[in-house]
Structures are given as structure tokens and as C-alpha cells.
């Protein structure tokens, strides 16, 4: 992306620059541009070029500015880019600022009915007769705004040399083969392509050319992937309440589960999905189901998470498996509901009054959303506790290029459950009468029975009040203390089940980065840039809390560790200091919290600044 200017030769002829640009489409939300943007993105992907798409949209249904950024990069960098080489302007309200966004040497496409002061000499400017072409399309008047968006697909296809067969296959995919919309849309695209060929002269360097770097990859959003993962994880119950950006997770679950699962069971369904009246109820129902032996989950975002606080404490203390997906948005409070953040970490870590502790998983890719979709259900039942999966709007709702989903490599593990037969054997095996909270294995995880178990003595009364090993009510100080210490120990056992951190790098660098979740792409890109500056770093990608021994080791081995994250207070950094009090200050927090996905440019600069470079 460097040195665009130089590529533009003095005589106006340009040296072409393949597969390395970031393109932003400025539209109005509700105008239906999503189809156009996805079509372009899919066409790039089909051409084998690494690509990502990020939608910057308002908390509103219709009429406000929206920006969709597609980054195409031959090195596979798919993090948010801070510069815009190509801008497509379809929104009168923002056209002037959109024009200002174009990087010198870049290209500006705009719908020519919009009034704009074309005050830039340093970029290529291409007007598009979007309105006219839409009118010519034969689409009914109400649909013209929508159809106008197809115009830029056609124009860009021509100007960027996109393979038109890939555009067609993207359109066919999008409309699931339905001929009427395919014809309408392809008609407009073709016309616009033609028009551009005849009327525009290319003066910018950006174009695409086929690569083969997307084999083995899919393009999807994390919420859909999480839902699919849960379905393969045998999820049986999901109660949820709508909230951006989590809604599409539960909605995808509903959309996919029937087709994938109904054939496996005779005479009825193997699951229930309930839209609850609020988040209190959503988590309550899921906990009820988890207690009753179902693989249960819910999904939410900040405000809903806050409302779940009391119930999470109940599940922690009464040891009920349940999975909670928190698709993070910007908080505190209602905040920016359509922007991304990693701001719920410390809250979740301590969620609930009294002493609590929770398992948190951090997927950093769509593929990992799928993986944690099923794995979280295993862990919840293995450890008998709530398991949180912290993803975010960027990962959950944007379309990422990601490795294909991997079928679970292990069988479902339902944890320590006693059905009738097992219950009978328990006494024999352990020489003791079964008790719900009796730690016979010494790993602090106890055996549970499930409603419907007909054995005398198998039933117990679950409660959030003080209970002894036999689930009986007690206020005895020692009972309380012993039980709570067992719970603490349980979280040591949990480390056997939770995903370990991933080390990226030689392991020999003196400087480290610890990161997690959706910032991975920006961190990896940063590492390359730092290497160019002669700085070698190892990257430890955290995949879960509580911390594994490997994290402590990593910290001990390094002299200096950067902890970049998308929040104000450096929340992981806070937790690391807390859990590793002998760190003596060698961890440096690099927080960023403007609602946008992390960019490598910012992170690189932040680290270089700290390094005094």
C-alpha cells in the first residue's frame, strides 16, 4: 500500500498494482447495498484473492450513513486498513467527507446525480450514471435505489478487472438460483460494466488478478459459524433475546438446526429454541435446561450480559452447565450498539456477587467460532459451570475469510452424569452413597443426576443457597468454606479441558505480544511490519481464561510484553497483572476503544512509539 503516488507515471500512464487495496462503499442503510458489497467481496474470494469485508453501520434501520469496506490483499492481511484507496460514494449526505477519505493516488467513484465539490486533484475521479442506469433497468420505481447499487458492481468489475463469471456466480449464490432476481441484477451489472468500458478511462493503479490463496477457506460471519458449531455440538436448548450484534447467532441456529438435525431423530425434534421475554429469562431458561441435562446456551451482548449477572452466579454456585455467547459491542451502557469492542472481559471474569470465577473462551476467527461452538458445550458439561464465549461485532457480523470448518475431532463428552445404571454402580465403585457435591475423584468435579432418573436417592434439590455435599441446605461455616474451596480447585481442573494458548513465532524473541479474539489479524500484520523495522516478537494468542501455565511461562521468558486490546482500560492486561503479581510491571497495555476493529497501522505505531522508534 506504500508509495501509490510513485506508481502513477509522469505521463499519465500507470503502473498497475494488483491485489492490494482497501475499498469503501458509502451508502445509506436500508438502501440494500449489502447485496452489492457481498457480491464484490465474493467475486474477489472466488478469484482466489484474500479478502475481508467490514460493515460500519448506524444503530438505525433506514436512512443513515453506512460504510462497507472491502480489503483485498495478496499477503492475506485482512484486518481493517486505515487508508482507503478506492471509495464508492452513493450517499449525498456524506459525499464530501467520503471524497476526502481517498488516499492520494486512489480512486473515487460516485453516483453522478449527487452534488459534490470535486476538490481533489490527486486522485482519479469516476462519475457513474447510477440513477439513469437504474431507471433503464426496467425495475419498478420503488426498487430503483436498490438497483442503483448494482451499478457500482458493474462499473468496478470493469475498472478492477474482476472476472465477470465470478460476479455471476456470486449473484447466483446470493439469490439461491432464483431466476427473476438473478436476471434483474445481472442485467444492471452487465449494463454498467458496458457503460464503464465505453465511458471511463482508468487512471488509477488498482486492480485485481486471480490468485489461488482462498482454497481451503470459507467466507462467513462468526455468528453463523457459532450457530453451526453449536449444532454439531449437539445443542438442545437455546433461549435468547434479540440484541445487536448477537441476534443473528440465535437466528442462524433457528435457520440451520432443522435441516441438519431433524433427520437424526425419529418422531420429533431434538431441541427447542425459545425467544424469551428478556435476558433474565433467556439465561434462566437456559440454566433450567442445563440443570435438566440439555446442552443449553444463550447469546447476548453487553446490556443483556449485565442483566444475566445474578443468574450466572446461581449457575456458578449450583454448578450448572450452560454456554453464554457474548457478542461484544461498545459499552458502557447502550453505548454504540453497532460498533465493536472487547470491553466485557473484566466484567465477565468476576460476573456475579460474591466470589465467582468463570471460564472464558476467545475465538479469533470464524473457524474458531465454529470450533468453540461445539467445544464450549463439552467444557460446560465437563466442568459443570457456565462457559462464556467472548466474540465481538466485528467477528460476529462481518464476513471473514477463514479456514474451512473442521469436524469435531473428539466425541461429545457429557461430563459426569449418572443415569439409572451408573447410579447403581456409584456406591459400589466409590464405597459411598452418592451426593451431588461429593468429590470422589479428587478433581473437584462431582457427579450429577438428571431429572427423569428413576432411581431412589437419585433426585436432589438444586439451590443457590448454602449446601453440603449431599445438596442439603446448610449454613455451617465449614461447609461453606470447604465447598467454595472445592469450586476454586475445580477451575484448576478446568485447565485440562480449556483451549491452550497458541504460540506464533519462534518462542525465542525477547519481546512478546499477548492478544486474543478478533484482533489476531491486525497483530499478525503488525508482526510483519515490526520485523521490517528489525523488531522480532513472539505472539501468544490467548484462547481461554483462566490462564494456563503456558501464559505465565511466556511472561517469564520475555523482557517486555505488549497487550493490545479493544477497550479503554486494558482489561486483559489488568487480569494478567492480577493473576501474575510477580510480573513487576513488564507488561504494557495497548488499549484502543473507538469502536472500530484494530488496525495494524495503529498497533505498529503504538509499539514503535513505546520502543522509542
Amino acid at each position, binding site marked *: 500500500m506504500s508509495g501509490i503516488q510513485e506508481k502513477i507515471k509522469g505521463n499519465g500512464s500507470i503502473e498497475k498494482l494488483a491485489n492490494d487495496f482497501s475499498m469503501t462503499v458509502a451508502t445509506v442503510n436500508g438502501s440494500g447495498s449489502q447485496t452489492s458489497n457481498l457480491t464484490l467481496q*465474493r467475486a474477489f474470494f*472466488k478469484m482466489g484473492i484474500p479478502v475481508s469485508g467490514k460493515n460500519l453501520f448506524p444503530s438505525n434501520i433506514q436512512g443513515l450513513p453506512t460504510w462497507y469496506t472491502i480489503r483485498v490483499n495478496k499477503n492475506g492481511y485482512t484486518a481493517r486498513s486505515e487508508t482507503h484507496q478506492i471509495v464508492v460514494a452513493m450517499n449525498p449526505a456524506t459525499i464530501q467527507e467520503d471524497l476526502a477519505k481517498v488516499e492520494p493516488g486512489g480512486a473515487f467513484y460516485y453516483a453522478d446525480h449527487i452534488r459534490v465539490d470535486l476538490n481533489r486533484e490527486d486522485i482519479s475521479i469516476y462519475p457513474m450514471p447510477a440513477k439513469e442506469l437504474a431507471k433503464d433497468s426496467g425495475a419498478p420505481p420503488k426498487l430503483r435505489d436498490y438497483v442503483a447499487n448494482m451499478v457500482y458492481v458493474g462499473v468496478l468489475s470493469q475498472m478492477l478487472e474482476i472476472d465477470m463469471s465470478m460476479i455471476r456466480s456470486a449473484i447466483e449464490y446470493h439469490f439461491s438460483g432464483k431466476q427473476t432476481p438473478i436476471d434483474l441484477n445481472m442485467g444492471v451489472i452487465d449494463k454498467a460494466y458496458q457503460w464503464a468500458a465505453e465511458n471511463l478511462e482508468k487512471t488509477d493503479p488498482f486492480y485485481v488478478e486471480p490468485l489461488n490463496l482462498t482454497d481451503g477457506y*470459507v*467466507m462467513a460471519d462468526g455468528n453463523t459459524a457459532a450457530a*453451526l458449531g453449536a*449444532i*454439531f455440538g*449437539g445443542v*438442545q*436448548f437455546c*433461549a435468547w433475546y434479540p440484541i445487536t450484534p448477537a441476534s443473528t447467532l440465535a437466528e442462524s441456529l433457528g435457520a440451520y438446526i432443522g435441516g*441438519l*438435525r431433524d433427520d*437424526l*431423530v*425419529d*418422531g*420429533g*425434534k*431434538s*431441541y*427447542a429454541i*425459545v425467544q424469551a*421475554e428478556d435476558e*433474565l*429469562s433467556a439465561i*434462566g*431458561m*437456559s*440454566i*433450567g*435446561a442445563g*440443570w*435438566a*441435562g*440439555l446442552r*443449553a446456551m444463550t447469546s447476548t451482548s453487553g446490556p443483556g450480559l449485565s442483566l444475566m449477572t*445474578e*443468574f450466572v452466579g446461581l449457575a456458578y454456585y449450583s454448578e450448572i452447565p450452560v454456554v453464554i455467547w457474548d457478542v461484544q459491542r461498545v459499552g458502557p451502557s447502550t453505548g454504540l450498539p453497532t460498533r465493536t469492542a472487547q470491553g466485557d472481559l473484566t466484567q465477565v471474569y468476576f460476573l456475579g456477587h460474591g466470589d465467582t470465577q468463570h471460564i472464558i473462551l476467545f475465538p479469533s476467527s470464524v473457524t474458531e467460532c465454529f470450533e468453540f461452538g461445539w467445544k464450549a458445550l463439552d467444557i460446560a458439561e465437563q466442568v459443570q459451570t457456565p462457559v462464556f464465549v467472548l466474540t465481538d461485532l466485528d467477528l460476529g457480523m462481518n464476513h471473514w475469510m477463514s479456514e*474451512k*470448518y473442521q*469436524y469435531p475431532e473428539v466425541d*461429545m463428552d*457429557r461430563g459426569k452424569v449418572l443415569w439409572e445404571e451408573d447410579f447403581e454402580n456409584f456406591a459400589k465403585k466409590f464405597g459411598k452413597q452418592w451426593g451431588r457435591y461429593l468429590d470422589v475423584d479428587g478433581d473437584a468435579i462431582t457427579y450429577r*443426576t*438428571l*431429572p*427423569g*432418573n*428413576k432411581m431412589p436417592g*437419585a*433426585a*436432589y*434439590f*438444586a*439451590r*443457590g*443457597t448454602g449446601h453440603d455435599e449431599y445438596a*442439603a*441446605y446448610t449454613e455451617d461455616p465449614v461447609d461453606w468454606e470447604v465447598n467454595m474451596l472445592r469450586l476454586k480447585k475445580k477451575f484448576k481442573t478446568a485447565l485440562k479441558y480449556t483451549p491452550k494458548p497458541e504460540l506464533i513465532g519462534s518462542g525465542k524473541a525477547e519481546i512478546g505480544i499477548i492478544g486474543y479474539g478478533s484482533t489476531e489479524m491486525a497483530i499478525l500484520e503488525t508482526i510483519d511490519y515490526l520485523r521490517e523495522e528489525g523488531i522480532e516478537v513472539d505472539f501468544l494468542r490467548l484462547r481461554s481464561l483462566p490462564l494456563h501455565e503456558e501464559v505465565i511461562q511466556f511472561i517469564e521468558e520475555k523482557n517486555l510484553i505488549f497487550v493490545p486490546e479493544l477497550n479503554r482500560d486494558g482489561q486483559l492486561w489488568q487480569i494478567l497483572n492480577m493473576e501474575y503479581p510477580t510480573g513487576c510491571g513488564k507488561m504494557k497495555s495497548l488499549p484502543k476503544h473507538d469502536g472500530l476493529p484494530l488496525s495494524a497501522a495503529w498497533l505498529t505505531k503504538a509499539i514503535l512509539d513505546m520502543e522509542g522508534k
Partner: protein
Amino acid sequence: MAETNNVGLTKADYRGAPTTLCAGCGHNSINNQIMAAAYELDLLPENVLKFSGIGCSSKSPTYFMGRSFGFNSLHGRMPAVATGGLFGDHRLKAIAMSGDGDTSNIGMGHFKHVIRRNLPLVYIVANNGVYGLTKGQFSATAELGLRLKSQGENLYMPIDIVLEALASSATFVARSFAGDAAQVKELVKAAFSHDGISVLDIISPCVTFNNRDESHHSYSWGKQHREMIHDFNFIPKEQEITVEDGFEEGSVQQVTMHDGSKVVLQKLDRDYDPYDRINAIKTVQEANQKDILLTGLIFVDTSSKSLIDLYELPEDRALNRMQQEELRPPKGMLDLINAQMF
């Protein structure tokens, strides 16, 4: 040998832990009738789930049917936990004990929503107009203008559990009085037989409720003892309040509460039509206007599908007994998805 029912169980098999509620608490009477009803219905305790929120009333499930699974959840949130819990094995029956505070204050929203979902649940509200467990604050069912010594005057309009249930399309609504053992038992039995939500509003006097400031009809000793000891930490042992024998359909009975105040109960007429919701609401409202508490089965609708039915579960399989074969799609399906995702 003790008498047994048709499933070979004695009454003792329906017992729970010894009660720790106050002597004379109406909740104990209700618990007794739940046990009796279950015994008479030949329910296997293993086939019944118990749910509750938080409160004296919500402690109750500990004191009946110790052989049943149960979940004492959070204040006001029982309906949510019960909803999820019932999906575990939908062939089981379920009964819930809640209080007026639990249901009509903090739990009002969930109460309404579990009703409109028609969860097959015997939902008992042990209604005493106060928060027993936190020492006698007003609940939302307390009557307007009620004065309690440590709380002052209740300023707000009362919530009527029965009206609320009817307004939100409950499919089984009844009211009774804890001291009317026969009626409570019969209603619990009917409720267990209903496939959908059954809301039982049972007036259940609280002994700590007898600290009225200026009760006009107080027991002679009541006033005196307050005068004499002036100690809210002292709770005398009371007799349960019961209705007289032979409380017939259509008849009216006055019951004296622990604090000496009087409640007028009226049993619904024998020819009352419980299938007419509009009339049910009207009848209850008219009785309320006259300060009469109607008791009996006020409304029932046997035609609506229960929540469980709506979810099309296998008739004879419990969800919680399904294993990997039934829950995890084969690898081929994932390959297909991977091929389709683009």
C-alpha cells in the same frame, strides 16, 4: 403396614424434609395438600419436578416430595428456570411454589410470559400480601390502605393474581384459601391434570403479618401482647387458620386472620361456567368490588396447546437422554456446508 396408593406408595413416600416455616403458616397447609393430592393421584414422585423462587413460600418444595428433583432458583425467576427445566424430560409433571412477592413484584414479567406460553406447570402462588422471609414488607397484593406497624401504609393499588392470569390468557385459573384443605387438594389435583399452565392463587396467612398497627378487630391478647413485649423478634406459635367444615359451593364464609382482620370467602356456585373467560373476569371483579374473595376453579380452557406440544418433541423420548448419534450431524453434512459457504 401403611396404606398405599395404586403405585404402591405410602403417604410417607410423598414427604419432604421437616418444615422450618413458622408454626401456623398457611404455606404448611398448602404443602400438606400437595402431598395428599400427589398421593391420591398416584403420581410417582420421580415423575414430578419441583420449582420455586425465593421466599418462605419458595422454600416449600423442600418440605414435600423429597423423592422428586427440584430447583429452588432465584427471586422472581422461577418461571424461566421451570421452562428450561421441563424441556429436559417433557414427560414429567411439574409443580411450582411461589409467593405473592416472588410472583407479583419482582417476577411479574416472567409470570405473565410463562402464562402466555402455556407451560404445563402447576403454578401455586402462596399469597399472604407480604414478604414473609424479609420480615413483613408489603407485597403488590397487599390491599390499598393496609397499615403494618413497621411499614406504614400501603399506598398502591393491589395486584390481583387471578385477574392478571385471566387477562394474559391463562388456561387454568383457580383461587383458594390455605385453610380450606379439601378445596386446595381438589384444585391441586385438577391442576396436575391440566395440560398447560394452571395458576392457583392460594390465600395463605402469614403469622408475621399480624402486626397491624390499628386493627379494629384484633384478638384480645394480640393488642395486649404487642403492648407487653414490643419486640418484633418474638413470633408466637399460632394455630393454622382453617375454614369450617362443610364449606359448600355458592356459600360464603368469614375467616378471621391472625391479626384479627376478617376475610370473606365465597365458593363459586355449582352451576358456574368455568369455560367462559369474559364472564370469569367479570365475576371476579364484581366479587372484588364487594370485598369478597371468590374461591374455586374460576377458568379453564382445555383446548389450547401447551408449550411443550408446540415444540414437537418425540412423544416418548426425553431430550436429556439423547446421545451423540441423535445430536451430532455426520461429517458429510459439514463437508456440504464447507462447500456451500463462500
